[in-house]
């Protein structure tokens, strides 16, 4: 049973504040992903949970126990690093057994505990290799094995897949998520990759400039972003953005043509006189009426085609079915689902 929570945590490096009033709670067994651009404080938050950094203010609880003043070795957390952090002079087996060796467990004990972990991660044949003899994916598997074997209360992942190539990253994503389900341990996972966040998380914590901006399930975050930052961060391609003003059920763009569209009904926000409209690319389509734009680039991806258009100086992307055709430079009109569009104050 290990709920992890940060209570009003502030952190400054010298005079530079990097975390401002961070409150996060991960339920027992939850897979919580901290996501945001680099420098948003997500890694610092994780390191504070691990005990590698101390909070300037605030408290950290693990399993209901205040661990704020405990050292990293006393928190029973296991951490997986971006650069794997494998001990180069130890074999795979020694790397995995290192924590137990520190606690003076017998060689037989270590072997017994390591075997199922090696089996689970497919490391059986690699146990006598050194890290330099392994591929990136294998190294990361060893790092995960080293975390698993300790049977920790909490798993901490700090951008574990960033050093892997795209294909491997996709595979490891699935693997880590399945593994977490299997062991059922509370997991905090830091990434700057919105795809990782969306696909792996039970809940996502979006951070920006040292603050928690939004917490919610992947679909909540995707469909109900609380501000432009969150809306722009998620989805690929990201949300489109057009300036304008709204009133009497419509949104009028700011450009000279003054395009007029039906204002979102369910944006959950009162229409403002000035603001910006956000339309999600997959929920926009070509139509006979709607906003006028010019096609700049056509990106066929097979399963679908992305149109990159110019709408009054803004870039506007549409995701169309794979067989959709549009000529570069041709004028089009775009309509989008009011349910999937949002108006934010300017």
């Amino acid at each position: 049973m290990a709920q992890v929570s940060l209570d009003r945590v502030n952190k400054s490096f010298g005079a530079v504040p990097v975390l401002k009033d961070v409150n996060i709670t991960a339920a027992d067994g939850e897979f919580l992903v901290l996501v945001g651009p680099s420098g948003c404080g997500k890694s610092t938050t994780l390191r504070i949970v691990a005990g590698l950094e101390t909070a300037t203010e605030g408290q950290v609880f693990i399993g209901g126990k205040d661990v704020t003043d405990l050292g990293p070795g006393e928190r029973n957390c296991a951490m997986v690093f971006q650069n794997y952090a494998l001990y180069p002079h130890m074999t795979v087996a020694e790397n995995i057994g290192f924590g137990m060796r520190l606690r003076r467990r017998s060689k037989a004990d270590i072997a017994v505990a390591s075997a199922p972990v090696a089996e689970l991660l497919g490391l059986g044949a690699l146990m006598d290799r050194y890290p330099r003899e392994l591929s990136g994916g294998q190294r990361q598997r060893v790092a995960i094995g080293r975390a698993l074997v300790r049977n920790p209360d909490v798993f901490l992942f700090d951008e574990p897949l960033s050093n892997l190539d795209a294909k491997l990253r996709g595979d490891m994503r699935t693997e880590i998520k399945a593994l977490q389900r299997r062991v059922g341990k509370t997991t905090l996972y830091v990434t700057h990759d919105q795809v990782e966040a969306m696909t792996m998380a039970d809940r996502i914590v979006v951070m920006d400039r040292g603050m928690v901006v939004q917490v919610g399930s992947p679909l909540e975050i995707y469909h109900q972003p609380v501000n432009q930052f969150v809306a722009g961060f998620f989805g690929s391609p990201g949300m489109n953005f057009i300036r304008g003003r709204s009133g009497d059920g419509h949104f009028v763009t700011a450009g000279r043509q003054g395009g007029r569209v039906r204002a979102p009904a369910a944006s959950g926000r009162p229409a403002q006189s000035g603001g910006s409209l956000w339309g999600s690319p997959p929920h926009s389509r070509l139509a006979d009426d709607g906003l006028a734009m010019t096609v700049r680039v056509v990106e066929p991806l097979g399963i679908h085609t992305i149109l990159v258009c110019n709408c009054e100086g803004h870039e506007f992307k549409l995701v169309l079915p794979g067989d959709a055709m549009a000529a570069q430079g041709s004028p089009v009109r775009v309509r989008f689902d009011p349910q999937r569009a949002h108006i934010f104050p300017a």
Partner: protein
Amino acid sequence: MTVTDTTSGAAPRRRTLGRVWPAGAPPPLLLLAPLILAMAAIVGYPFIQTVILSFTDARLLTGFNASRWVGLENFAYALTDPEFRAAVGRTSYFAFVSVGIEVVLGVAVALLLNQDLKGRMLFRALLIVPWAVPTIVNALMWRLIYQPDFGALNAALTQLGVLSEYRSWLGDDAVAMNAIIFADVWKNYSLVAMIVLAALQNVRPELYEAARIEGANAWQCFRHVTLPVIMLPLTIAVILRLIEALKVFDIVYVMTRGGPANATKTISFFVYQESFAFNRVGSGASYALLVVLMAMVLVLVYVRMLSKAEANQ
């Protein structure tokens, strides 16, 4: 020379020089010829001369032509000579104590300078200074510091109240060797520190973090993370220092001339005396060759270490 290929992810594969040597380039031996010739002239020729001398009873003043072939007589005498044995004992003491202290001090200073402390770059630059001082200058400097009547050490210790009266540091046969060792350590620990510091830069900080999360304390971090990384460079530094300590001559020559009462008479000084004070160059050569043999053992270990280091790259 080997080049290691680690791209495959399998065990590193060694390539021989032949594979990387460009086609049509002059043969390696030809390119090395100038160096080999120079070495032959300044090292090879005197060495052969020494070997020949060691089998004769040549004396410095009467010259080589008046000497007689005596076979292994010089060596037979050298190996049973209690004075030579005593010199070997003194040299071993000098070598092990000075290198031992240099290792401990060097590692400690390297660890300190690897910390995130203020003025680190300045301290790192200062670290090189003692090592850059020529041995003769260092020896003269310490002779002045130890000088019994106006030396800085006596002044400092009496003014601090540690000593009640001035002492003759280099004139006391119980102290002189340790005084020389101290002077040698002051100069040479910095080489060890620099080599270890360079090795420490290769340790990724996450390794310490990973170890701390696994519950390692400061000693365990040092033992399991730092030490394995610095072990090989440190061993190489130790062997280099041992070889040099075995040959120690100039610092002894300047500071004590082997005295008082032979208390600092090391092997090299012994050989020097035998050849140039007692004029027995033939016998001196045989002693010198015995020193070379001892050094060769260390050199062999050194070469093996280096090739091991290369294989680990």
